[in-house]
């Protein structure tokens, strides 16, 4: 895809940004979610509310933060609350419409692992851990997943379930007494996936331009399902790609 006017990472981010609305209240993580949210803010959703777990509410960063607590966030925020309050009133209190998650491993039901590769007590790789994810996964009204495809990352079974997707599928969330939707969409560098309405298995609904089914199958650790009415993801517009690249350039220069 070298000759394309965009790369697959960029499309992943842009595709996510397109599904954000002006009245969304997003619990934003660092990296692709932060980029997607800020592209949305700088284009079709100028009043979108972006919240970072550091307690910064309604941020309007000019550069993408490196950490979830960069000074830029507080300086451009509507208000900054203590972290206790962030998790109690704003996340647990049900104020977030969208939370973003990704991780080292994901399974077909959107369960995610950011804790350990290998057994918990004797890990092969000790990852950072859950941070906000265990509660983000169940307390935001909807979850957007963003993650690059790879056989290592898209696995039949996660080594550790740091945060819940649809559990074992079907109505697993409901039986646990959880009322939020869970992962409504997964954006990757190859495709857009959505849960099957009944089984809740993540299903490819739109492939990015130039991607074939085999490309997807080659990067997924299970046999992925494809929707009957499979779409092709819209190419990034010039404006989208410019907004993203400008934001990234300014950010790289700033750090």
């Amino acid at each position: 895809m070298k000759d394309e006017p965009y790369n697959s990472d960029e499309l992943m981010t842009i595709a996510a940004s397109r599904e954000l609305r002006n009245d969304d209240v997003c619990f934003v993580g660092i990296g692709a979610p932060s980029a997607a949210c800020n592209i949305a803010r700088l284009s079709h959703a100028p009043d979108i509310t972006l919240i970072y777990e550091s307690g910064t509410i309604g941020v309007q960063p000019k550069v993408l933060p490196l950490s979830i607590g960069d000074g830029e966030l507080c300086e451009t925020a509507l208000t900054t609350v203590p972290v206790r309050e962030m998790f109690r009133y704003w996340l647990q209190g049900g104020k977030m419409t969208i939370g973003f998650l990704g991780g080292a491993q994901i399974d077909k039901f959107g369960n995610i692992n950011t804790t350990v590769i290998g057994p918990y007590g004797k890990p092969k790789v000790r990852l950072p851990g859950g941070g906000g994810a265990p509660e983000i996964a169940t307390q935001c009204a909807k979850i957007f997943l963003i993650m690059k495809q790879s056989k290592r990352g898209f696995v039949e079974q996660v080594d550790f379930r740091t945060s819940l997707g649809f559990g074992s599928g079907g109505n697993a969330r409901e039986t646990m007494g959880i009322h939020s939707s869970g992962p409504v969409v997964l954006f990757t560098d190859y495709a857009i996936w959505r849960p099957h309405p009944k089984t809740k298995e993540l299903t490819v609904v739109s492939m990015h331009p130039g991607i074939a089914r085999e490309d997807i199958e080659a990067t997924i650790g299970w046999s992925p399902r494809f929707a009957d009415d499979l779409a092709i993801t819209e190419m990034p517009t010039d404006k989208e790609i410019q907004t993203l690249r400008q934001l990234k350039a300014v950010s790289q220069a700033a750090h």
Partner: protein
Amino acid sequence: MPDFVSLDDAIKANLTDGDVVAFEGFTHLIPFAAAHAAIRAGIGDLTLIRMTPDIIYDQIIGMGLAKKLIFSYAGNPGVGLLRRMRDAVENEWPRPLQLEEHSHAALANAFEAGAAGLPSAVFRGYQGADLPQVNPNIKPVRCPFSGESLVAVPSIRPDVTFIHGQKADRKGNVLIEGILGVQKEAVLAARRSVVTVEEIVDNLNAHPNACVLPSWTVTAITEVRGGAHPSYTHGIYRRDNQFYIEWDKIAADRKRFQEWMEKHVLAESEGVFAKRIQHLKSPRT
């Protein structure tokens, strides 16, 4: 009224081998100078608590001074993993490290409960997550009215908490502004607290609802300009993001880590922090 002492004296008087200690800061206001002074003093067998252990805990762990870590996210924020902490967990180098792992929500609640003098915190969390299966300090509780199943975690009550703030006045009242993290809770929950500040002033000139710690909640205060570097102090200097990126390389190798610590921590004193922020001073926007 707190003691106004040197950082080394504050460490000597308040931190002992085997203590349960929180060096708190949420990306902002991380008390690096205090942690480096503790490392220089060689105080060990520590149980470290922090929501977001980052470089300072990587350093303390890498120097073999910690026996246990209570945490919710152990990463170099925006950069990657904590390589010294990984080495301790995966290879027991330089010594084994016990972990007690929570989510952010759990630890934020646990600090709150500590400040509130409660034995535990109750919240809605960990639904469908594996952590309760490996951490016996996460227990189910039931709401006596709705019957809903919630979870409890023990409150956090450190022996001593270290934080960094913008200012203290001469009576020892401390002002913190910007991203507040759980520092107020960490101080109020602790038996003792040591605060480094950028400046000691006549008057805090604080907004009525600003985060102020009254003098009688603080055990010792030391003025250390730049004391949060490479973290930052809102309104005074920027985060040294470049250093966070560089740390990933320093910590990747045991020998390089040790040489770096020797040169930049063990052979230094807190005076160096004022120099480290020279190029990061930012006007308040």
